[in-house]
């Protein structure tokens, strides 16, 4: 039976480091998708995702809220992607190349809040979205995996979708407010 993020984190801390692999299994695809929208190419996204997991494992003692493992992991991923970007920028000193990189790295910014919004969902809602869309399971397969009736899965997914949509709208609203403030400062 699947444990919660909090339970896996606690088991890792209690001498079962191999259980970290189950957290990697759970979040590898969504973290990869999140980073793929932030870096230049897919191999970089995979490298950044692996590096993020390694750093997360080594920093597990610092995690104050184990139940927030996923949002914490995305934060690590975000830092790794920024470092990777800066390192690449430093490597290619050519100004024109840097400009191209800047454009490509910021051209898909509308995509990566999706995983950040997912991190804000209750864990059971988030797991169903991950299984249904990132693992590609059918609703019936999700029900079998989690040992739940099909109706419970479809209802929870419906609610998860509504929560996700509202979370994304709230983020759009906050970001548009920040942009307005920034534009006001510049003028």
């Amino acid at each position, binding site marked *: 039976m*699947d444990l919660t993020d909090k339970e896996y984190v606690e088991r890792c*801390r209690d*001498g*079962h*480091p*191999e*259980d*970290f*692999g*189950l957290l*990697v*299994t*759970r979040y*590898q*695809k*969504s973290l*990869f*998708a999140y980073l*793929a929208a932030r870096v230049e190419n897919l191999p970089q996204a*995979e490298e950044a*995702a*692996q590096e993020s*997991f*390694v750093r997360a*494992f*080594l920093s597990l*003692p*610092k*995690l*104050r809220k*184990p139940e927030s493992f996923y949002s914490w992991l995305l934060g690590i991923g975000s830092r790794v992607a920024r470092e990777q970007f800066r390192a690449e920028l430093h490597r290619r000193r050519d100004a024109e190349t840097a400009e191209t990189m800047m454009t490509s790295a910021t051209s898909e910014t509308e*995509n990566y809040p*999706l*995983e950040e919004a997912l991190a804000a969902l209750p864990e059971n809602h988030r797991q169903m*979205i991950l299984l*249904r*869309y*990132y*693992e*590609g399971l*059918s*609703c019936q397969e999700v029900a*079998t*995996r989690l040992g739940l009736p*099909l*109706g419970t899965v*479809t*209802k929870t*997914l*419906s*609610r998860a*979708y*509504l929560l*996700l*949509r509202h979370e*994304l709208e709230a983020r759009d609203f906050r970001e548009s407010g920040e942009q307005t403030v920034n534009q006001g400062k510049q003028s």
Partner: protein
Amino acid sequence: MNCADCRDNFIASVEGLLDHDQSLQCQAHLETCAACRTEYKALAGLQRRLVARGQAAAGVRMVEPVMRRIHAEQFKPERESIMTKLFKHRWGFGLSAAAGAAAILSFILIAMPKAQAQAVAIMTKGAQAVAKLTSIHLRGQVRTLPGDNFSLIMPDQGFVTIELWKQFEPGLKWRVEKPGRVVVMDGQSTLLFIKPDFGYKVPQPTPSAFDTQWLHEMANLNKTLETELTAIKSRNWPITLTQEQGADGKAKSVVSVEARSGLGADDYLHNKFFSTADTRRVYTFDNQSELLESVQIYLHAPAGDQLVFKLDEIDSNQPIDPSVFQLQLPANVSMGGAMPMLPDNEKYAAMTSEQAARALFDACAREDWTEAAKFFNPLTDTVKQLLGGLQVVSLGTHTTLSNGAEIVPYDITLKNGENKKWNVGLKRDPTTHRWFVDGGI
């Protein structure tokens, strides 16, 4: 149906999981409620985004490399600095800094050896679980050329499907196949067919032949795992264990073994064949059945580890269709066999492999097929079409393989202008002692 009921049914409605009455009720509510209609329409857009995200990450599988990196990170010389950082950190999970540091220290230093012991135990159980095989079918992918030697690894090539069927009882029979080459042992003889027109028959049954040994060893799961365990103990090969959830939702134990060939990086054979490569073998066992479910082999190369073989279908003790062990050759196949003794046989028998390679390429350049045929068993029309009129750019010095064959690097320009650099494999015929081409063309 009210708004809350309708919204609870959104996913079931979109995925066609509602019964007829529920679907009608949901539709009726949507027709009268603008707010729910707006939400319902927005669902489609968000679903498309989610599906696209999932598709973008479909092939991602990083549990094993992440756990390997974690293991390497823990045991690298700079570990002290990591530990120092951990000691300095103010911990937030109910332990004092000193007690927390002690816990982490034991977590790093004690947990991994325990995990190694667990990994060995899992492999031992896996070996016991397949101790009595009556048949086996393996299906995997290997980076190589479709028609070349069965044991050749070519990291720069795409994946080619390779399969083995093996019946142990009532009598030994086997078949190994990849797209350009197949060999069948039907209990009486062993027949090799290299597409499109070359065949070779060994008139007796063989336990393995034509460079299929490594796959036969893998098919002998019990022996393979036991051999790995022996090497782990005697040669101190590193072994790690991780737990992960399989695509079927079941818990899996993933054991990684770092295998060392013992060859230096400058040795020509290093990383060319499975038996001469530095590799990481990754074995995945189902926790419940304890059976081995998949194998991946990664080649250690300067540019980074590369997956060169993945075995993802292992069916043991299932009946195999008898037709698998029959092979009908096309009518145009040229069959190899006993090589004839030539009037001037001594001249050819005295050649080194480099001299034989030079002589056969020069004969092909002149399209002197009588002379070229002395080095092929047999010379086929396909080879004539390929090599006729070639120009030799250069030939290298030979390397001897473990099976006694020698390979000679060559650089030639074909009649169509294409440049080809590869190695011709040469073997000595046991009767005439002449070199004949055994692959690499």
